[in-house]
């Protein structure tokens, strides 16, 4: 783990207190990852997976209950850690009486940057999101898409070394989404780092160098999309109520049956060989097994995501994509 990496999360855990009785609820469990300089790092997971919680810890809004986070080598609680950071929260609001340009000027001043060059920095940020024409309008008159763009502009202000974006494409039209992806790619060309959390998997797939998938507060996968896809190629998931009764001979096909802890009626077969997969499917169908899903030869991000999160099949299993340092829930 490099000490100079823009972002380091080491065994990060976060608990919240909920309800009248203040019951403890864990939102994050031992999540570790490192983001390298110049990387676009996709951060994925279903609702409630802990993505925003992780981002809020990295920006210093929340204190970790366990483990530690480092941003630019510093604790996120230190203001200095946020000097070269731009952040777009998923939910945000700005003073509605301010103009877009006025807001950016104010944020630039808050970042303690010199007055010299402020106009240029503000102009660059507005240009990057295509908001120059609406910059003199009051924010209260902006549409949702324009709000999202001005939110992105304030995050891009001053061309920060690290950009943390939580659902930046939400509410954007396809053209703006495209130009936003271009902005992120251009930043990468300049060696700038981006942490991109999004539900729009196509956007992440297009730009991310690596992704991390969270499910229920735990990391379930991390790595380049291509590698994760290969690891999940040709997965056949099937349900069998009575494994003792149904035991197809898979050895001649070079397959072995993986069981799922906590899901005794579910099994997984993996193969990159199409004929083996077809033969296995025929065997399963003949035996009356309920085939839950079949993943293509090379899984895309959506297949990977669904396999790891949307179905309960793989929860808790080691799929070979876990990085070292990831621990079990405490």
């Amino acid at each position, binding site marked *: 783990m490099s000490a100079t990496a823009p972002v380091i999360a080491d065994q990060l855990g976060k608990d919240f207190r909920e309800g009248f009785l203040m019951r403890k609820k864990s939102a994050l469990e031992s999540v570790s990852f490192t983001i390298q300089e110049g990387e676009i790092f996709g951060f994925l997971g279903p609702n409630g997976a802990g993505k925003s919680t992780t981002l809020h810890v990295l920006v210093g*809004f929340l204190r970790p209950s366990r483990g530690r986070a480092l941003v630019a080598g510093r604790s996120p609680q230190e203001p200095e850690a946020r000097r070269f950071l731009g952040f777009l929260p998923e939910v945000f609001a700005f*003073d509605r009486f301010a103009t877009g340009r006025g807001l950016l000027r104010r944020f630039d001043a808050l970042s303690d940057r010199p007055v010299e060059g402020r106009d240029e920095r503000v102009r660059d940020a507005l240009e990057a999101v295509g908001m120059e024409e609406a910059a003199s309008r009051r924010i209260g008159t902006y549409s949702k898409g324009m709000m999202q763009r001005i939110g992105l502009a304030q995050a891009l202000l001053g061309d920060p070394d690290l950009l943390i974006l939580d659902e930046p494409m939400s509410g954007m039209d396809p053209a703006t989404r495209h130009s936003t992806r271009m902005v992120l790619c251009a930043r990468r060309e300049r060696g700038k780092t981006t942490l991109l959390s999004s539900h729009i998997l196509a956007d992440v797939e297009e730009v991310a160098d690596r992704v991390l998938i969270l499910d229920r507060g735990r990391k379930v996968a991390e790595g380049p999309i291509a590698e994760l896809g290969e690891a999940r190629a040709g997965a056949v998931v099937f349900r069998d109520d009575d494994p003792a009764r149904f035991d197809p001979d898979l050895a001649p096909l070079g397959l072995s049956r993986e069981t799922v802890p906590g899901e005794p009626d579910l099994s997984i077969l993996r193969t990159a060989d199409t004929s083996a997969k077809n033969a296995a499917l025929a065997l399963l169908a003949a035996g009356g097994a309920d085939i839950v899903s079949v993943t293509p030869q090379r899984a895309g991000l959506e297949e990977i995501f669904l396999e790891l999160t949307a179905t309960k099949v793989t929860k808790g299993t080691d799929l070979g994509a876990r990085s070292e340092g990831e621990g079990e829930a405490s």
Partner: protein
Amino acid sequence: MKGSFGALVARGLWRALSDRTAIIGGLLAVTVLAVAGPAASFNVFASGADTATRAAKLRLYGWNYTSSFDFLMVALGFALGANQIAGDIKAGTLFGVLARPVSRGKVFLAGWSVSALLLVGLEIPRSAFLIGTASWLEGRLDPLHLLGALAVVSGAWLALASLAALGTVLTPTYAILAGLLGVIAGNLAFHQEIRIGAWMLDTVGVLLPLPWGQERIVGDALTGASSHAGPIVEVIAYRLAWTALLLFLGSLAFSRRDIAPRV
């Protein structure tokens, strides 16, 4: 004022001036002054008394006729204080600021400074008019008059700091409710004739220095009924010390609190 603190103050000023509560409170305060000020002046100058008596009457009527302004100042302090952090969080406008390289303590203190300056700005017309006119009539500036006005301002600052500190850990509504409970408890405590007040004063007085009869001391200093500076200085010191303590505690609580947008 330069740097991020100046930017925070500018932002706070912008927020306060676009805050409906602040605008309504400010307008009410100006209305009170616009009605009570001329009324007090008319009574004094129509009385036909000698200059010294006129000066004394001006101080007495001027401050008494505008006593509702004191209430408005404290109420405005409550509203601005509660809105300072708690309102900013509730509106979701604080997170863009907290993502910048500024400490939360600075954010808290800048917000309080803006509201404190606004309260001073509201008090200046009344104090300047009454102190200025009385000094002109008396031919000298009574330091106790000035100290009395400072005590009024420090009282509003204390209310502001109390609510700002409560607002770092509570929502605006709960902060105001807690502040009102504090006022009720404080009023009970300072009324010795009420049994529970005497009991509270005896209990709390063991731990905290509680100067009794603050309102009377301030009133005497403003109206010229007192010629001793000691009590009013003590009241000012008490209020400023509590303000400083509450600002410290509020800043600490805000710095240590988990605050994140609801998703």
